[in-house]
């Protein structure tokens, strides 16, 4: 970063801080918080803590900056702390900080269930006597292997099911879980685990239980030949599960009575040409729908499906990256707007097709063009003032929208559109400044956040 840039961004931050102070605005203050030094932070915090409800709101919000979460962890207000510990955005270090010197059992339980709690942290709050704590730790994906071994001794069936889903469970632990209760659901979880020992996997594969065979079929360690063997299983659910893991479809299933099996085949990236032709003629429209979306479908098949009576099948062709241009042009004038809308979101559109869709009345078509990077700026300018708020927002979601076009959304009456606008990298700096004074708090927050991060980069 050059000295001049630094000066500029410091200057901006001071100005934003002044604004936050003059308006006593906790949202601007919160967005600024991570960019400030100690004394400036104190100013922000004074604004944020001026009202009891504000820290509580930030403690549970997904957007709150980590620096502010850290500050909130030092609060005395119990409700703030309770919210903080349940916020999934709260990182490990804040959880750790929060636990220091805090002997509130419910908050410790909440940490035990928290997706960001580290193995070490979970280890530190182990309490064999508390069933709530035990359960939370057993189901926490971060729980380490050693802790699971300790918990195993007294674990209930329910707790064992949690551990069987833990990626750190090793083959020895899984063996012990397998014999612990003899429960089919627990064994099914073990059978799908990537560390499932070979002998248990083959026991599952040869089991009478459909559930076990199906879950085993989903195991990432099965070889292709094992999967192919499973394709002859008498149960369609098992055939579907094994087919899902294979790259190719197989001719032997061409007339499978279960439509789910045929649907699954229609999605394969390696498909025999005879097979794909058969599937394209399937009576089940979902089979045809998946073929229509399949990029390996040959042109002749796509041409045929482009005339299918089912809207969704034609839409599938319009979404297919292999569909030839002339067919796209044809689908761009389909009677169903939902098919035309599928054309409108293709990133490979040429001017001719865009022109064709330009005057469409469907909100789905217009919103599709609005977020399409291929759309010309003049068209985007037009869409940005459409009466429908969702259509207008599409322009703010378009990565290629120019700053001039985006300006048209500056006074959009729908707050979500202005908040979306803030996050657009092409939005001009003056415009962002304007949004820092928006009537809606989320817009102000986003605008300040953007200005700060732009200044820093």
């Amino acid at each position, binding site marked *: 970063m050059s000295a001049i840039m630094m000066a500029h961004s410091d200057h901006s931050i001071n100005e934003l801080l002044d604004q936050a102070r003059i308006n006593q605005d906790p949202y601007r203050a919160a967005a600024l918080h991570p960019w400030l030094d100690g004394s400036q932070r104190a100013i922000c915090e004074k604004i944020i803590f001026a009202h*009891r*409800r504000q820290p*509580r*709101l930030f403690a*549970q919000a997904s957007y709150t900056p980590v620096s502010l979460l850290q500050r909130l962890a030092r609060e005395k207000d119990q*409700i703030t702390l309770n919210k903080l510990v349940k916020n999934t955005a709260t990182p490990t270090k804040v959880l750790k900080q929060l636990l220091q010197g805090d002997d509130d059992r419910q908050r410790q339980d909440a940490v035990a269930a928290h997706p960001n709690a580290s193995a070490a942290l979970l280890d530190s709050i182990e309490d064999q006597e508390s069933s709530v704590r035990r359960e939370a730790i057993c189901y926490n994906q971060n729980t380490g292997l050693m802790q699971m071994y300790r918990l195993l001794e007294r674990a209930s069936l*329910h707790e064992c*099911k949690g551990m*069987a*889903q833990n990626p750190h469970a090793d083959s020895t632990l899984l063996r012990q879980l397998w014999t612990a209760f003899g429960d089919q*659901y*627990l064994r*099914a*979880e073990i059978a799908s685990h990537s560390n499932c020992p070979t002998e248990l996997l083959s026991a599952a594969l040869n089991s009478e239980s459909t*559930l076990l065979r199906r*879950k085993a079929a989903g195991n990432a360690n099965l070889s292709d030949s094992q999967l192919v063997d499973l394709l002859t299983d008498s149960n369609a659910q098992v055939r579907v599960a094994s087919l899902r893991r294979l790259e190719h479809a197989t001719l032997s299933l061409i007339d499978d009575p279960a439509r789910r099996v045929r649907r699954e085949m229609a999605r394969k990236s390696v498909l025999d040409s005879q097979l794909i032709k058969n599937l394209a003629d399937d009576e089940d429209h979902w089979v045809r729908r998946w073929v229509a979306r399949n990029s390996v479908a040959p042109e002749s098949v796509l041409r045929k499906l482009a005339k299918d009576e089912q809207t969704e099948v034609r839409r599938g062709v319009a979404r297919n990256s292999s569909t030839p241009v002339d067919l796209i042009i044809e689908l761009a004038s389909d009677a169903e707007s939902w098919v035309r809308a599928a054309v409108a979101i293709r990133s490979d559109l040429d001017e001719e097709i865009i022109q064709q869709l330009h005057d469409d009345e469907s909100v789905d078509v217009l919103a599709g063009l609005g977020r399409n990077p291929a759309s010309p700026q003049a068209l985007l300018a037009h869409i940005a003032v459409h*009466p429908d*708020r969702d259509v207008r927002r599409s322009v703010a979601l378009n990565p290629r929208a120019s700053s001039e076009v985006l300006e048209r959304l500056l*006074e*959009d*009456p*729908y707050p979500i559109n*202005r908040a979306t606008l803030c996050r657009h990298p092409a939005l001009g700096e003056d415009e962002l400044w*304007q949004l820092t*004074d928006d*009537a809606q708090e989320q817009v102000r927050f986003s605008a300040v956040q953007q200005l700060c991060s732009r200044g820093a980069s």
Partner: protein
Amino acid sequence: MKILVPVKQVGVLDEDFELRDDGRDVDPDYLEHELNEWDDYAWEEALRLREEYGDDVEIIPLTVGPEEAEDGLRKCLAKGGERGIRVWDSAMEDSDPMAISRVIASVAEREQVDMVFAGTLASDHGFAQTGVSVAGRLGWPQAAVVSNLEYQPGASTAQLRRELEGGLEEVMTIQCPAVLTIQLGINEPRYASLRGIKQAKAKPIEELSHTDLGLSDDQVGVAGSASRVRRMYVPEKGQAELIEGTSAEQAQRIAEIIKQMQGEA
């Protein structure tokens, strides 16, 4: 030609809150106030008439509430209009919508307005009663849940649509003056510009008490209400029943619940 638009700052309650010591309302510390969404649409409808028909149309936002309620008026005035009216004094505490409607009707008479546009309901207590009560007080015709309006200021009738249950709409002609309660979606309320917000700060807001309106003490507050709050309480929270187990077990349970519900229907 004047249109009066009564607006309300609704109370948005925090997730965690406490009740007031007397148990008849919540502790105001846990409330945040914002302009009722429906009123935003009612004000927009008035703004549009003023824009279309010019300066002969005067539009006045009115609020019945303490000093903080002024924010709501300023929010309206930031979009247009020249002045606002706020009525409040301590005797008006704990007024129900019926008592509030008496105040609004008195202002309508004092200002000799030609139409009243009110929000259909407010998002806090959802009474859906203030606007139509005002009509009852004024002896004016009324239409509730108006989703479309064709009206030329000064005309003796207006044509409108009312939104009924299940998306059905009724087309109706109504004699004016009238009270209309405005439904969401009748228009798209504009966004107040920065300039507008600054200008609104300088616009006059007339502050009145119930006596200024010629109302007696027993016509406002609890005495002037058609109901009285005995107590407020937090309902036993219908906590979601947690479905546990492996995903196979959870899905099985969901399927059972769904099939049972479909069987009952």
